[in-house]
């Protein structure tokens, strides 16, 4: 009987099997990589805004407090976007003729709000409350990054469920003293290991169990 397959057939078969295996394994890695990429999560991507507002200039260099514009962050679920009137408190006096600020003046004249491009979105099935996080010692920069260095604002963290759970599982690693909540350069102090649990107890944060219930976010 003759050979049905040429001598090279085995090499081809092994190549095909290995390629198939590599394709499956590589495909999984590629898909996982794409799902975590900035392209999908939007991290670090600053979209064009109707007015090129700079957090770096206003908050970083001029030192305007977060709460000057985001007024409801300590009292409501949403931090609040400033109305045009807030902009105009200053810009009716300075840079009044700037071309860059024309959309703001138009908005003020017409009463139509400026349509900012939203950066930090949560799905509709996630219930999130700014006030409870801020008043119990979670600082702005933990989620939003150091906004005071952002010329054009971008999303600092992919708000995937893992991001939320990391903190909900161990809030003592992130909780701050009340005066540090607004500190955009905060890093855990040397005594965080002792300070954290104290703050958690003082603020009645039930980490680990209560904070991990599905219904705490998915109501």
């Amino acid at each position, binding site marked *: 009987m003759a050979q*049905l397959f040429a001598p090279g057939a085995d090499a081809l078969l092994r190549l095909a099997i290995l390629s198939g295996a590599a394709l499956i394994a590589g495909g999984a890695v590629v898909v996982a990589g794409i799902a975590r990429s900035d392209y999908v999560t939007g991290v670090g991507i600053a979209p064009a805004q109707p007015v090129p507002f700079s957090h770096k200039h206003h908050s970083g260099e001029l030192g305007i407090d977060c709460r000057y514009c985001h007024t409801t962050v300590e009292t409501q679920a949403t931090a609040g976007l400033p109305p045009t009137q807030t902009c105009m408190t200053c810009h009716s006096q300075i840079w009044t003729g700037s071309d860059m600020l024309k959309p703001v003046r138009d908005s003020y004249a017409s009463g139509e709000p400026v349509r900012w491009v939203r950066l930090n979105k949560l799905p509709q099935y996630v219930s999130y409350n700014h006030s409870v996080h801020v008043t119990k010692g979670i600082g702005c920069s933990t989620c939003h990054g150091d906004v005071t260095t952002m010329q054009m604002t971008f999303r600092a963290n992919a708000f995937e469920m893992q991001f939320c759970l990391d903190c909900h599982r161990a809030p003592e690693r992130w909780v701050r003293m009340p005066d540090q909540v607004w500190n955009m350069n905060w890093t855990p102090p040397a005594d965080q290991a002792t300070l954290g649990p104290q703050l958690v107890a003082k603020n009645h944060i039930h980490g680990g169990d209560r904070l991990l219930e599905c219904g705490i976010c998915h109501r």
Partner: protein
Amino acid sequence: MAGAVLTPDTPTRPGGTARAVSDAALHDPLGRRWWIAFAAASGLLALFFGVILYLLFTGVGIWNNNNAVVWALDIASYDWWIGIACGSLTLAGILRLAGGTEGSVLGRGAISRLAEANALLCTIAAGLYPIIHLGRPWFFYWNLPYPNTLGLWPQFRSPLVWDAIDIVSFLVVTVSLWYIGLLPDLATLRDRAFAEAQSERAGRPRRWPMLKAQAYGVAAAGWRGSASHWQVWAQAYRIVALLGILLVVSLQTGASVMLAGSVLPGWHDTILPVTFLVNAVFSGVAVTAALTMLVRALYRLDAVVTLRHAEILARILLGLGLASLYGHTAELVSGFLHGDAYARATLVRRFAGPQAWAAWTVLTCALLPVHLFWWARLRRSPGALALVGCLVAVGAYADHVMVLVVTLSHDFLPAAALDYRVGLWGIATFAGSVGMFLVLLLLFLRALPVASITDLRRQAGLGDGSARAGAEADAPEPGAGTPLWGVSAEFATQADLAAALRALARRHPQHDDQPRRGNTIRLDAFGPVPMPDALKGLGRHNRSILPYALGAALAGGAAFYGMCVYATAYGYVLDVGGRPRFSWPSFVVPSVSFAMMSGTLAVHAVFLFVNRLPRLNHPAFNIPGFGRAMQDRYFLAAEARGPDFDAARIARQLAALPEGAGRPLAIARVPR
């Protein structure tokens, strides 16, 4: 006629008995009827895809599922398919394990192959249901443990996860059992197709016949019918059969425990795990019996599937029917004697509620008809067997509907009671899955042997050396410049082969795979059936792959259990109704299923590694007339190892053996 085919003197074509045996299994009498059936089945399959498309756009509400009856025809259909698959797998596994490595009373041949194929096809038909019954089917992979951006583990206490692990394991095991059984048959198909491609008349294109032969060749993974191939093959077959039976027990008792994990009435009797198992095996054996009788009639396999086989199947069905009757009765009796009010009300509603048709169908289709088999005449009637088999399948479906819907449609609170009516879309989905089953069944019937050629050969007595010598064309000796692979000898019987092997092994004590000093030859034997005598001659009869399978199954099960414990108690602590962090009983079902899958995968890996397969091009195929090693001849190969190999001396030693005790029909030098 197959009845004549198996007697040794009838065939006149070259290849003799063995050729006729494989013809019996490959005979395709359906012709145009196959195409008509295939068109109809394809229509149903198209309906299936249409329904799924509509389902994806609309949601599970199209099945009339509602807030109370969250599981209806979707889960009933899934349970029905997987139940039949479990029963077929159990039957196939028991056929494989019964009667030792040599033939068995039941005559495996067709019943075994059809049971294996039925198990696989039903699993595939069932396989889509766990995905499409989800609210968001496109996230089905959330059920599996993988590194995800949610920071979550699957909830291993949840039956939904058990189902995902079960169905994957079940698919792996059924595919394995079917493929292992098919492997030598694929080699036979390969050699037939190759012979046909080579004998095509000049002028006709030979491309497609060659491609067909090569497709079978790749599927056969380079099977050469060597003594060690057969040895590991037989072990692998039996081990996977055993793992499959254990998986069936895990899956069916697990299905019952899943229901018992809820608080709903009617799902908590302690006999239910056994009843589920019995009912599944009952329905699977019934469908396999009906399918076997249908194929027997269409393919005229009267000699392969005899009335004795029909009688044994009928007796098994009667026994299972009695066990099923006992299970149902015990549930009723214990429910009424000491069940609580809600359990009793559920039992009453089964017979008097809006779904009472289901209970009465169970009684009239599943429980009563098998009692026809108390009469010997009906036990030997293929028609009665096919009819009862189909009725039991109908009854089994009604049973699943009854168990699920009656409980769900009315639990503890009157406010939570919602009626359920079978809807058109539910029926269409089920009909579509039947279409998928039929399409695959028809493809299987057309492309692959309906009966195991290997088993038929063994039954025809090829294993014990009754094949006759035939005229053999002299093969051209390789030229002087061709490198030599070894010396081959051809035998008509395994006894001759074994005698020659013993003689050569005595003269060359070092003849195995190990490259050591003085090892100038490596002996091997090739044949169409397992060759225990030849293995003894080679001194390899004590090898076993069982430790690897056992080790892999235990390690896989332990690893999965460990993962469940880690995830639930440490990695992802979630308070579900106050259940403890270490909810150990919840992890048993998926761990056992995973263990069976690990064992099966290890069997495959060891089988391939021990035999150095797949190997498509091998010098053994250069042996003159080697195609008949897949039919009725036995070959010995003395492979050259090292420069001291003396082909002429080995040929002399072989030729000097006495007639009837090792003298070969032909001796050849085989080029590399």
